């Protein structure tokens, strides 16, 4: 019970040649933070688009929310009121001429009255710490700042589920840190259900559950601790363990002083959030 997203036997093809998603089933509980990982082309971004109704699945079902709304062409507008998404390219999702206009965009689409919009803009701009930039244009902002605006825009819709599709891969370390901190805040304090799509296992370590994809299929599912034990499977999807865990794995075949203590310490370090 309490699953906010239910994916059942989902399949999707972009073209006759590649099957992008093959019979995926997944359940995402309310308030949890799930990371979907895999190589470039494994289908993780496609899955995100399917969840948002931007692509139509060939087979299978997606059920959203506690009411278990089936995602169809008719219900897609309702579903989009429940899930927000932040994409990878900070420039290609910034619609407004200024920060203010961009945060307002989603609300304008929902015909939210003006007074309410103003209130929400101020509230969420503050939350993401962009309140001093309301009249700035996107070309005056860094990548991290633009992504923060995108988050504010999604939150202003009072959504419970947020998808972050490689939202930090085009950012510098500072921007990445800003976004990661925000995601942590949203999940821990605001109890939002979070789906992060990434190929960074260190980042994925912060989440509650990991789902590893390869060539359109789920090959591994579990907590970080469970998933990190499977180095070979992870490698097959071009993923690399955090350094300490990689080290720990490579050390397995050697014999050396204090092996047990060192192995344990490395494992502990690698799983540190």
């Amino acid at each position, binding site marked *: 019970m309490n699953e906010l997203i239910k994916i059942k036997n989902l399949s999707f093809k972009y073209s006759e040649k590649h099957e992008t998603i093959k019979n995926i089933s997944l359940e995402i509980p309310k308030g949890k933070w799930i990371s979907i990982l895999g190589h470039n082309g494994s289908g993780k971004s496609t899955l995100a688009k399917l969840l948002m109704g931007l692509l139509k699945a060939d087979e299978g079902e997606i059920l959203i929310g506690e009411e278990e709304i089936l995602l169809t062409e008719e219900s897609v507008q309702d579903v989009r009121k429940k899930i927000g998404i932040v994409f990878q390219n900070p420039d290609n999702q910034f619609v407004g001429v200024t920060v203010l206009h961009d945060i307002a965009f989603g609300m304008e689409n929902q015909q939210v009255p003006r007074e309410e919009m103003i209130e929400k803009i101020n509230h969420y701009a503050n939350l993401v710490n962009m309140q001093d930039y309301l009249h700035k244009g996107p070309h005056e902002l860094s990548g991290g700042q633009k992504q923060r605006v995108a988050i504010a825009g999604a939150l202003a819709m009072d959504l419970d589920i947020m998808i972050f599709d490689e939202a930090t891969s085009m950012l*510098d370390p500072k921007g990445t840190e800003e976004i990661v901190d925000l995601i942590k805040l949203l999940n821990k304090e605001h109890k939002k259900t979070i789906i992060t799509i990434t*190929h960074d296992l260190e980042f994925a370590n912060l989440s509650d559950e990991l789902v590893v994809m390869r060539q359109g299929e789920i090959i591994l599912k579990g907590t970080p601790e469970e998933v990190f034990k499977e180095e070979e499977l992870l490698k097959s999807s071009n993923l690399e363990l955090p350094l300490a865990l990689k080290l720990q794995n490579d050390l397995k075949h050697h014999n*050396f*002083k204090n092996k047990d203590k060192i192995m344990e310490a490395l494992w502990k370090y690698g799983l540190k959030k």
Partner: protein
Amino acid sequence: MEIRFEKVNFQYSGLTDTTHALKGVDLKIEGTGEFIAVVGHTGSGKSTLVQLMNGLLVPNSGVVNVFGFRLPAKRNQKINELRQEVGLVFQFPEYQLFEETVLKDIMFGPKNFKKTKVNAEERALEAAKLVGLDDNILKSSPFRISGGQMRRAAIAGILAMDPKVLVLDEPTRGLDPQGRREMMDLFKEIHEKTNKTIILITHDMDLVSEYAKRVIVLSDGLITFDGTKEELFEKEDFKDYHLSEPQTIKILKYLEEEIGLKFKEKYTYDSLLEYIVEGEHE
């Protein structure tokens, strides 16, 4: 044969203000054998620095000397040939692809320079082989291949120009972990095989500790450090540079704290592994 910066200043004049991007920079880079990481916060002047090396930008004051070619150049002196000597690969270089086929695009660079015009196709094929692009890809349109292949094609395009020095602006941005490793191993291979100087702009301290020999730290247009990576990471006041420590060091520090394993500076993964296995840490 070297690249020299002597008291170089550079300012960008915007419509409402000017940004002083580089302030009195002095620098010397050998034409061969160096593997340099250029690090610094966004806006510290890293891009400006490398664009001054191939003449895309010209100093407002001071002199940049690239293999004997002085910048600012005299009126009417052609800067263009300089760009063959210093091969600059921008961030997300896949955006520069435009030709009908991947091979043609890789040949584009060499065809533009006197030195490499003659056997442009040969050079292109060699470069393609070096980055791991097969014949099928060479025949395809650059827009029908994967993102990772596009990036490799773009880099091959610069390698085919046979530059003396290779400058790369965050070449691993946006790549998945394996892609990142393959790319860095490629540069390592080029460096070891040809002894070309490689200059890498990066934010990733782990890349620095794994691959670089020398590190230049920029902050607000000034060079705040120029030395070996060991010297940098072992500095007393390393914290003041606002750079993260490499993972290898963090792990070693943790191991010392948790189980008393004697700390010793190790920067590459292999050396760390070796250190633990050889057990000199008692």
